[in-house]
């Protein structure tokens, strides 16, 4: 079974191979185990990029294959980050509080510990009580479940509402954007218990791993991200191949016709929407411990549109296209906006990339949409076709 699947999708094998080589090379060059050519902060950037690639392939499946231009998948990504961030913050603060309470005359009661953690975490929003949504934050297992279940459930409910009333095309995009805006506004509020626009911070400190250096922890997270990307890639390659993939692509091209073939289009869309939302949640849960901080601005509608931009530049309807787009644009973005790109002096005006990168990105995006609708992945397609034709002759 596996064999036939891989045999039918040789690109999956190539991708896994490339990812494995990349992971090994980065590991060898990293500070923790090798030559130290890759700094820990760049290692984190690479790990984060892998997570962005994972959410990008999820976006590609829902948009490139199923035709739903969701402007909400980065919100699911952020929710995953918040879910794991709640545990990280709770567990780390618990450790700190335990230490500080050691000095008091009486050993602390569980209630005192909880109160101290509460005022430590929620002091910034003028509160000290634990909101209801933090009920499971003490348990890593439950928060890990939340990473998958919360985005999944949200996608399931929203998708069920939207698909059953047959909202499609740009209307659906606008509706998903509205959902994303509502979510980000919800997270922005101080009294919803997620620390308002302060967000969650200090996430890079993993409880239980305090004695390990950031170099080592970052490498572990890099590996974790690579494995997640590999598994996600195989999962989605499996989903979009075969008859299921055939139905999904048919829905993208002519939804009504698929309905007349007897398929429950809504169920398929709901399945894809929910599954990709869950994977986005996982990607976010791996991303934010490497980023160290998450705040509601990360969830704003514009982030989800950028996600669509990556996929479009990389090439829709091919999983590796999404990977290329996300990796390329996000790495270029951090290069240009990080101030390391050389400014161009025109004599009368100096082009500072920190100011002009977004202009360049926007323009290139318009050009790609107009003239290269298949994106960068389209080039690979053309090459691949040539090779197949060469084999055939």
């Amino acid at each position, binding site marked *: 079974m596996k064999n036939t699947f891989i045999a039918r999708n040789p690109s999956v094998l190539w991708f896994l191979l490339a990812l494995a080589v990349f992971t090994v090379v980065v590991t060898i060059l990293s500070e923790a185990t090798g030559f130290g050519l890759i700094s820990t902060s760049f290692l984190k950037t690479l790990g984060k990029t892998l997570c962005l690639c994972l959410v990008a392939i999820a976006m590609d499946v829902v948009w490139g294959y199923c035709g739903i231009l969701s402007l909400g998948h980065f919100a699911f990504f952020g929710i995953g980050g918040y879910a794991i961030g709640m545990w990280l913050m709770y567990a780390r603060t618990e450790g700190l509080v335990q230490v500080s309470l050691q000095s008091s005359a009486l050993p602390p009661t569980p209630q005192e510990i909880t109160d101290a953690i509460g005022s430590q975490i929620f002091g910034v929003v003028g509160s000290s009580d634990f909101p209801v949504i933090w009920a499971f934050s003490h348990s890593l297992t439950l928060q890990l479940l939340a990473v998958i279940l919360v985005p999944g459930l949200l996608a399931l409910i929203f998708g069920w509402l939207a698909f059953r009333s047959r909202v499609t095309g740009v209307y659906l995009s606008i509706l998903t954007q509205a959902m994303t805006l509502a979510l980000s506004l919800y997270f922005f509020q101080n009294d919803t218990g997620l620390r308002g626009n302060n967000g969650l911070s200090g996430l890079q400190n993993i409880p239980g791993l305090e004695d390990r250096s950031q170099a080592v922890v970052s490498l572990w997270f890099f590996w974790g991200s690579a494995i997640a990307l590999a598994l996600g890639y195989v999962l989605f390659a499996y989903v979009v191949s075969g008859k299921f993939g055939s139905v999904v692509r048919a829905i993208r091209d002519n939804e009504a016709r698929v309905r007349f073939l007897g398929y429950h289009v809504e169920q398929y869309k709901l399945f894809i929407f929910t599954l990709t939302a869950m994977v986005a949640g996982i990607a976010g849960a791996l991303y934010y411990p490497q980023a160290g901080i998450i705040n509601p601005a990360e969830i704003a509608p514009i982030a989800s549109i950028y996600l669509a931009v990556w996929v479009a530049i990389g090439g829709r309807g091919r999983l590796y296209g999404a990977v290329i787009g996300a990796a390329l644009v996000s790495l270029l973005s951090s290069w240009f906006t990080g101030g390391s790109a050389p400014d161009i002096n025109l004599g009368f005006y100096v082009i500072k990339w920190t100011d002009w990168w977004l202009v360049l990105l*926007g*323009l290139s995006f318009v050009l790609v*949409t*107009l003239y290269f609708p298949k994106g960068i992945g389209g080039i690979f397609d053309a090459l691949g076709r040539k090779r197949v034709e060469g084999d055939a002759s």
Partner: protein
Amino acid sequence: MLRLLFACFVLCLAAPVAHAQSLQAILQGHADAVESPSRKTVDAVIASLADAPVDGIPTFLEDWRDKSIWMRTSDGVFFSVVEDGDGLILTDLDSGEETTVADDDGFSQAKPNAGVRRVISGALVQFLLSDPDISRRIAALDSIGRDPSADQLDPLRASIAGEPDADVLARKQQLERQLTAQFGTDTDARIAAINHLSGDLSVEVRGVISQILTTRQFVAASIPDGTNVAQILVIDEDLTADEAYQLLVSEDLAPATVSTADIVSTLTAQIADGQVAGVAVATLDTDAARYAAYETLVANGDAAPFVSPEERAAALDAHTFYTAYVEPNSAITDAAEDAQAAISLQLGVGQTFDLTLDALSLASIYFLAAIGLAITFGVMGVINMAHGEFIMMGAYTGYVVQQIVPDYTVSILIALPLAFMVTFAAGVAMERLVIRHLYHRPLETLLATFGIAIVLQQLAKNIFGTQARPLTSPDWLAGAWVLNDVVQISYIRIAIFVLALLFLGLILFILKRTRLGLEVRAVTQNPGMAASMGINPDRINMLTFGLGSGIAGIAGVAIGLYAKVTSEMGADYIVQSFMTVVVGGVGNVWGTLAGASLIGFTQKGIEWFNPSNTLAAQTYMILFVILFIQFRPKGIVALKGRAAGD
């Protein structure tokens, strides 16, 4: 007696003044009375000041009252004095000239006692209230309104008769009623005044009424006779059992409970050799263990005992909790309660009206922001994510014009058409260069126009910087139309409302009554047929898109006047605008109006339930829209049947 005196004073004011005198001269006539004033002599001094045509009397009275008048014993001259260490700074009462002396030898301070000071204060109020300068009289009335007190009542009453200005007279009468209601001595007069105030919405009146209705919380075994009880408090309804018990404790009617913190501090205080009450400290890491240890202490007589729940309940049962009015006369508080009920009814009506106006102006803003989109998205089916940036361009156009043309009225009149032209041109350019190629790929239009939106936003940031730029409205738009203390609406919001109505009319006119509108409808309904009838669809699409964009530009100027101009202002409106169009029903101007109204009113309505949190209101509003789309996927004003194009 005073009243008679002031009546004379007012008459004297009106009479022509024979000759000018100095304040010092008048005071010298009563030198002893000024220097050591008493209740017997003060009236004479004030009476002599009353008919004196000299300046500075109020200042003198203030200084006198505040013990800042000193007499130079050598020649008996009075000065206004500020003590400066050992020395004095002397101010001449007439010329205002300042001199400094090193010590206060040779000067004696006038020290009026409390009774005299009250008389002086009354006279001071009287002087101000009868000042020939109307603005001083109004200032005096305002100061009474801000800080009313019982002793202002008589001077105020005395000044009413001679008031020449009708408005000031009305204000005086109103204040007189307020003061009577609050401080009057005659019950019937007070009730009459309160009844007269009922239905007045001003903040002052509401303050007076609630002042009369001030209550305090009490607890007693039985309510003492003669108490003007406001309410008997029921435990668990009006106050919690804990609060009630706290009240008992604070009145020394019951023993204090032992709190968790008390336990901790008692235990901590008694730690010896790592043990307390015979238990190792290290084991005290649960509440139960701490309780047990504490009870041991209690048994040993080392700590205050717990109050058992039974004792608590018994203590609560034995007492009555109630609130009582500070005002002892129940007839007056009853009248005030009635007045308050009447006022809060009116207040409710006023607030509802105010909310309606607020919602209307919010709806107008949404409508303005969305109407351009209703044309490009609704009529042409083009998703323009850069629509918000066109709004921003319009606003910045207004800002730039104001930098060049300093007159705000003129600059707004120039900015409106100019903004239209700028964004019309931008819209046409965008349609020609980008959108034209994507008519059959709506999702990609969305993304391409988003790319343009990023570019425009960043360009605005590069040119104008990230800080907000002001777009100042002309003076005639600056104020607010005040109906009463509750209902008021700023002129700028009225202008936006009017502008929204104008646009509605204009768009309807263009679409229904002009050749362009006819051709637009023809092209949207059947482009092939329209083309075969000689209509150039390219031209129509271009013009329609330009029109939609140009309107966004004008909306930008209007929104810029009302909010700040920033590079991100467009992004703030884009999602709401799309929702307005979708909720209203795509392809229909009336739909956009309906959508804007629905969203504006819903948002204000939700804000009304939870006024402190506009973010929450927006969140729930969006959820409402998402649910609304479930039940009317095609919007409020839906096209049916084949025209819907499904």
